[in-house]
Every structure is written in C-alpha cells, then in structure tokens.
C-alpha cells in the first residue's frame, strides 16, 4: 500500500462496520487533563478512608504499626460497653430528633408549598433555614448558653436538651426533600379526590400523605444521618455523662487510639454508606 492510500483511508473514516464505533471525532466537551484532576479528587477523598478501614484489621495494639490481619477488633468494638452506650445514645437521639423534625417539617412543607405566595413567606423560609445560615460553632455555644440557663433555673438535667438542639438543625434538612416532593405533586390529584366526595382530612390521609411517602422517607434519613454525624453542637450542648459516638471518638483521640476505634469507625462508615444508598434509591426521580 502506498502512503497516499493510507492518508485517504484515515480521512474517509466517518463510520465503520462495527455498530456504535465512530472514527476520530472532535469531542466538544473534552477539556485536557480534567479527567486526571477528577480521578485525583476521588482518590484523595477515599484514600484516607481506605487507610482507616485497612488499619482496623491490624493485629496490633499500636494502630500504625502493622503486624498482621485480624477480625478481632470488630468483635471488641461491638462488645465494648462504652461504645455500645455511645452508639445507643447516638441512635436514640437521632431517632427521636429525626422523627420529630420530619413531622414538624412535613407540616411546614404543607403550609408553604403549592400555595399562593403570602407576604410573610420569604421570612418564613428564612426562619426555617436559619440553622443552616449560622456557623455551627455559633449555634453550638448559643444553644449551650441558653440551655445552661434553663438547666440551672429548672434544675432539670437530661438528654432532652441535646435532643431539642438536634431537632433544631434537623428541621431544615428534613424540609428540603419534603418540599421537593410536594412541589412535584400536581394539585389536580387532591382536586380529583375532593371532586369524588373526600373531605379535606380524607384527601390528606388517602392522597397527599401516601404520595408524600418517598419525601418523608428521604427526610427521615437525611435528618437521621445529620444527627448521627453531628459533632460541634453535641460537644457543647451535651451534659455530663451524655456520650454519643462522635464524643467517644474525640475522647479516644485524646487518650490514644487502638484499632478498636478504627473498627468502630469502619462500622459507622458502612452504616452511612448503606443509608446514602437507600436514600438515593428512594428519592430517585422515577422517569
């Protein structure tokens, strides 16, 4: 074959016999090197976590010195009473806070979505989203101060303060998926139900509420995770003896860690990933 033949072959290559296979084509979307940064980004996000998980299997009390592979730290972590207590408290607070916040946010979403804009609406939005607009440390100490005053005044000490502080910042997180779901819901279904003799309460119970369920699940999960993850507010507002998992972790970091901490963290990470996956599946827009 001569050179010219090869050149013309290349130039005349728009499509070949293989289906879907196209010749050299100018990719409008491509930017050089971006893929490298993207891969780097994902790697940097996950590398430390892999390190953490890897060292959970370290058969050595000193975390960073690798001795061998073992599962034992997971067993120890699961049976450790302090971890159990902390996990239980985290779960309890998160459960109560997420359910309460979801109920409150559901009511708020029903009142603010699909309605004709009323004058105080922007103010209401601002109030509902207020916890998101203030730096967390400021909220933490402000709440701490407030509850300290109430504690000394009423002489009542208990987990309720922690729970309430969690409810406050869970509400905007629960509100978001609820609002999104409601906005997607055409009012015509409720109109059709009313047309078919359903009273307003029955319209809510039989039509609005069932159709809202994906949003409610999303709200529950989002606020649950946010509550479980919270560190700043919990550190400052929790009373003596109230130790959630993040607080336990901080304590361990001060004292010195063993792979038990890694094991606990790994389990925690797994739980988070599981919840995110479920959230993605439930709130995925059904096309």
């Amino acid at each position, binding site marked *: 074959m001569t050179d010219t033949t090869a050149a013309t072959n290349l130039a005349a290559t728009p499509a070949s016999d293989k289906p879907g296979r196209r010749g050299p084509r100018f990719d409008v979307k491509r930017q050089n090197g971006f893929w490298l940064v993207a891969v780097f980004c994902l790697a940097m996000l996950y590398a430390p976590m892999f390190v953490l998980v890897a060292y959970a299997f370290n058969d050595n009390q000193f975390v960073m010195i690798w001795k061998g592979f073992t599962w034992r730290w997971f067993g120890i972590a699961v049976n450790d009473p302090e971890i159990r207590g902390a996990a239980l408290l985290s779960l309890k607070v998160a459960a109560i806070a997420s359910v309460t916040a979801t109920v409150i946010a559901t009511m708020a979403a029903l009142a603010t979505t699909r309605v004709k804009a009323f004058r105080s609406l922007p103010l209401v939005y601002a109030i509902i989203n207020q916890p998101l607009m203030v730096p967390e440390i400021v909220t933490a100490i402000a709440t701490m101060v407030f509850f300290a005053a109430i504690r000394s005044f009423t002489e009542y000490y208990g987990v309720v303060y922690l729970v309430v502080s969690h409810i406050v910042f869970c509400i905007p997180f629960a509100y978001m998926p609820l609002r999104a779901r409601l906005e997607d819901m055409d009012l*015509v*279904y409720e109109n*059709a*139900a*009313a*047309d*078919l003799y359903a*009273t307003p309460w029955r319209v809510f119970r039989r039509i609005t509420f069932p159709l809202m369920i994906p949003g409610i699940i999303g709200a529950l999960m989002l606020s649950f995770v946010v509550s479980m993850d919270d560190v700043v507010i919990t550190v400052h507002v929790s009373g003596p003896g109230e130790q959630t998992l993040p607080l336990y972790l901080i304590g361990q970091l001060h004292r010195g860690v063993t792979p038990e901490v890694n094991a606990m963290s790994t389990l925690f990470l797994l739980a988070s990933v599981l919840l995110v996956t479920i959230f993605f599946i439930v709130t995925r827009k059904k096309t």
Partner: protein
Amino acid sequence: MVAGATAIEARNVIKTFGNGTEAVHALDNVSVTIRQNEFFTLLGPSGCGKTTLLRMIAGFELPTSGDILLDGQPVAHLPPFKRQVNTVFQSYALFPHLTVAQNIAFGLEMLGRRKSEIESQVTAMLKLVQMEPMRNRKTNQLSGGQQQRVALARALAPHPKVLLLDEPLSALDLKLRKGMQIELKRLQMETGITFIFVTHDQEEALTMSDRIAVMSKGKILQIGTPTEIYEHPSDRFVAHFIGETNFIEAEVVELSAEGGRLRLASGAEIFHPRAGQASVGKRISLVVRPERIELAPLDDSCQFAGTIKNIVYFGTDTTYHLDVENAGEMTVRMQNRWGHQSVLQIGDQVGLKVEPDALQVLKD
C-alpha cells in the same frame, strides 16, 4: 327525572381575578340553563371562560357574584365534596398509587357505600368502559385512551347528577378521538346523566352536542342546537368561530310586513324575510356559508361577480377562493358530485349565486 327539567343553572355569574385596574373578568355576567339528560357543550377559544365556568360548577372556583343552582338548589357556597357533580379532568388525574379498580371505587368509598355494593358498581363500570382486564393494573401502565376511560368510569361510578368533562379528548390522537366521541355520546345516552363538555374544537362540539354555548372573553354569545349555531349564527364571532364563513355588507332599501329588500355591496338586490327589524337606510352584516353559494356562468341571476384566485381539492369537495367585486375575498365550496376535477380554472370570471334563506342577518 323529567326530561326538560333543569339540571344546572348559572345566574348572572361574574368571576373577577385581581383588583382594581388589573382586574380580569373571567366570567362577565354569564347566565345559562342546562337541562337534564342533555349533552351540553361549552365552546370557545382559550381564555374565553369556559373552563372557569366548569370549575365553578364543580366547586373549585367561587363566583365573585351570581349563583349556581343544581336541581334548583343553590350550591355555589358548597365545597366540591358536597356537590353531586363529578369531573373528568383534562389530565385524567388518576391516583398513581391506586389500581384501576381502586380509582373507580374511590368516590363510592368516600360516600360510605357498603363493600359489596362498591364491588358490584366497580365491575359494572369496568364493563361499561370495556376495561375489565385492566382491573388490577397500576394507572401509570395504561395508554392515554385507557386512562381516559378509567377517568370516565371513576367519575360515573358514584352516579352523579351532572358529569363535567374538561377537554378530555385533547390529548388523544385523531383516530382515538373520533372513537371516543362516539363512546361518550353513547355513554351519555345510556346512563341518562347530564354531560357538560368543554372544548375549543368546534367540529367536536357540532358532532356530539345536544346544545352548544359559544363563549368568548367571559361572555356567552349564543346558545343553541348545533344546527342553530351553524346555520343561524347571531354574532360575528360565532359565525367566524364555527366553520368557515363569508361576510357580506348590505343596506336596507325597503321594508314591508314580510321582510326587507336589501341592496348588496355589488349593487344586486335581494329580498330577505328576516331583515324586518332594521330600519330603512341601515347598514347590516350578512353571513353565508361557503357551501350555500353556487358558482355559475356570469349573468343577471347572480348577485356577485368574482375571479377565481385559488382552487383546493379536498376529495369530497372542492373549495374555491375568489376575489369578488365590492365584497373582498369569499370562499365557495362545492361537492365533487360528478367525480372529476372542476372545469373551472384559476383566473376564470364567474358569477356567485346565493339563495336569500342562505343569508343570515347578524346582530350587530
């Protein structure tokens, strides 16, 4: 249920949106009486108020003033769930989380009927709209036509006094739509329920309705049977909206007990029995349908003379667009009774012949 008795009456209904100078009169002093067992259509272009009136009858809008009566009882103050009126929505609005059978059963459940009764009614309805095999399907698995039928069944199941249909056929393709038009007519006659149908498609209105109300800009312009509306439009808008039409100006020359003699713009004079209301010298507008004009060789028996500008062949008939002396553009339609193409050509000069009773005087 006495035939001829009133099912729905709207009295002096006014509906205003907005305030002050920006107020929009969706309905401007509308009054209409709809009889029982009637297939009544509200016809008009978008924005004319037909949907607003329908929603008002259903209970989703409250009149700014005026009243709505159902079976003689005022209902405008009642919410939708207290009126024995059901709606077939334009988007069907089938409850996505319920099956077909559950959708149809919904109204009866809300009314507190017994389970056995609901069961049998649902089955009867499914049979009526021929959807029995789809009984337990989820509604998002149905085609447009099927959803439509379920929506109908759902609205008919509680046996309302009046059924409202808000442009239910607009989302269907032509063949399906024609089929559904026949279906709806049959359903109305079988169930004996008063149907109030909203559409902007005048052909649909003419084929299905017992009576039509033509609306524009919040007012009812004319109420009548399809024949009345088509052949004797009372108003320029109605004449123009329904079918194709030609407008002719004339002047009253002489009046008598039998009617009036009119001088047409072309100079020809005709005698019209119903020109009697006008006074001598008054200018009036006449309307004539394209199929009521005949093209003939030009002579004195023709009222107009014109030149053919365009010929459109439709298969069943041929439409001629002409430039007519002293009358502007006119359209004439003639049936292709003899099967072959017309001998007339573009550019031919012809005469137009009109029978007096084909002319309709417009209320100006």
